[in-house]
């Protein structure tokens, strides 16, 4: 499946809207150090390593930018899937069956769909997912100084890449609390000190603060999307209710795939008399899977109180911690990519729950039939959702190619881009690479594909 997603990503042009400016910036920057300084801080964000990574890859690309950036994107997807499967610690056939289910949950969720299509030259949201899964793998390992060093390095790189980077610390601490000792106590203290240093640098030394409602992003509220201006009018005086709404809807979006981007899609569909298949295909497997997780958590809790353990039950606790922390970090605006780490850990929790469901033997045959039916429906719908990622990437690739076709490299100054000769030459090359890609015409794709898998 990783190769299959990679195949799609290699046919997806680098995006104009979120990527061209970044690439022109790093082209104009004389060095990595200059890039680091210029991007720490920028507005309400502290992401210096993000731009440094783009600069490094840009310089290493040797002029083959499509190959370098999309290849890196594909590698991140493969790495995320590898670390995810490794964290499952598959040992038996039961594990194997549950792992197959968990992979379809991971790749079928809105959080994965939102993340994998992200448009920056490097997919930093996916990087944070990889860093957090790597942190869990480190916590599950046998430990040692290499593991401890890796934990510290992963935390620093993640924290200076995106605002959700400190989730690495949450994973490490949650792992420690549930008994994972791959990362030593000493390393955990060091990582906690690094977190303190990060917070001090951010809030005291640089006085950056955090993104607020003035961050300038659209965000959903109730049954509709609000523009930044509408958000300012409604919540400018007291943004707290809006922040609480975003935190709550972020949690719900992981557990039930609705709301999406803060908009309650199912309610919106009912109100508008426009029930969309794509909404139900996401929410139904989510509701079923969350129900199975809730049941397994209840059983695990009962067992824990009586001194017994359910295999892998610690992943429920880690998932709960990550979900809470990730939702809090999404307070400023709702977006599936921001909550994508929680999505990955939800799939890990689903693995443990479904493994328990497979081992469970109901006394009454009718109950067993119901259990099998629930699992079969959830599993089939997640697999169907996962297959839809290909369609989503295809549609996006087609649109992006049109964006490039509409861009005149000689007139990029009109769009606010740098317009010296090297900038125009780079734009012309990226445009040529995009137009030369063999991309299917999504206007010719059957309408049902968009109904079920579209945006």
């Amino acid at each position: 499946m990783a190769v299959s997603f990679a195949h799609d990503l290699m046919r997806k042009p680098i995006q104009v809207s979120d990527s061209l400016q970044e690439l022109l910036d790093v082209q104009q920057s004389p060095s990595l150090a200059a890039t680091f300084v210029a991007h720490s801080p920028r507005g309400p964000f502290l992401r210096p390593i993000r731009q440094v990574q783009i600069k490094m890859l840009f310089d290493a690309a040797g002029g083959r930018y499509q190959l370098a950036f999309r290849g890196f994107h594909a590698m991140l997807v493969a790495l995320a899937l590898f670390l995810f499967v490794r964290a499952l610690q598959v040992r038996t056939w039961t594990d194997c069956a549950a792992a197959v289910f968990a992979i379809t949950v991971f790749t079928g969720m809105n959080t994965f769909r939102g993340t994998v299509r992200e448009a920056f030259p490097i997919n930093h949201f996916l990087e944070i997912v990889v860093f957090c899964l790597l942190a869990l793998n480190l916590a599950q390992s046998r430990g040692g100084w290499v593991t401890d060093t890796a934990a510290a390095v992963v935390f620093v790189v993640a924290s200076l890449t995106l605002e959700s980077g400190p989730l690495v610390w949450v994973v490490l601490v949650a792992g420690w609390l549930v008994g994972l000792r791959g990362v030593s106590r000493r390393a955990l203290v060091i990582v906690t000190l690094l977190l303190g240093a990060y917070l001090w640098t951010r809030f005291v030394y640089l006085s950056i603060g955090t993104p607020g409602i003035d961050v300038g992003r659209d965000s959903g509220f109730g049954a509709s999307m609000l523009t930044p201006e509408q958000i300012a009018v409604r919540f400018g005086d007291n943004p707290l209710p809006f922040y609480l709404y975003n935190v709550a809807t972020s949690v719900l979006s992981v557990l039930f795939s609705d709301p999406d981007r803060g908009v309650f899609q199912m309610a919106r569909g009912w109100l508008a008399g426009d029930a969309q298949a794509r909404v139900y295909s996401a929410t139904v497997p989510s509701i079923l899977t969350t129900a199975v997780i809730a049941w397994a958590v209840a059983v695990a809790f009962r067992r824990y109180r009586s001194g017994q353990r359910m295999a892998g039950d610690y992943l429920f606790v880690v998932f709960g911690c990550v979900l809470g922390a990730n939702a809090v970090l999404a307070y400023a605006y709702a977006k599936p990519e921001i909550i994508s780490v929680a999505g990955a850990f939800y799939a890990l929790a689903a693995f443990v729950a479904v493994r328990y469901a497979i081992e469970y033997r109901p006394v009454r045959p009718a109950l067993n039939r119901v259990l099998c039916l629930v699992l079969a429906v959830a599993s089939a719908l997640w697999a169907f959702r996962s297959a839809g990622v290909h369609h989503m990437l295809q549609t996006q690739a087609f649109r992006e190619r049109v964006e490039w076709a509409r861009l005149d490299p000689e007139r990029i100054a009109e769009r606010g881009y740098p317009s010296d000769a090297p900038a125009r030459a780079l734009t012309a090359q990226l445009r040529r690479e995009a137009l030369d890609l063999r991309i299917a015409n999504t206007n010719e794709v059957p309408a049902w594909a968009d109904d079920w898998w579209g945006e």
Partner: protein
Amino acid sequence: MNRPAAFAVAIPGCLLAAASLVALMLAAFGDYPMWRHEDVNLAEAAGVREEAEVTRLIERGQDPNASYPVRPGLLFERPANLTPLEAAVINDDPAIVALLFANGATVDGQTWVALRCFAGNSRVSPLLDAHRPAAIPLECAGRKTAWD
């Protein structure tokens, strides 16, 4: 292990993995099922709303005023011979009609009348009106187009 439950859980994902494998094997022979790409000429690209491909083909030197064979199934059930502008008007695509005009597509009086009559009140009509040849009366009664 509850075998029915295990099968219920694993089979859809296994089928997906197998389908992905088959798709990749087909891709190795240039026929990936979800990325089916067919080479098209300028008229075909204009007729199936492939704006980026229209741009690419014009930049690679295809003539926006020439006629091209259009394969059955794209615009009509039978083969046709059309200019890109005719194909875009038939498909009522203002973006591609504008793109073609911006890249040197022209129409003589007779073709313009034929296209304008076919377009009626569709979305491309204002664009055709903006490129109306001088002193051409619009008389649609009984007129047939080249592809009728």
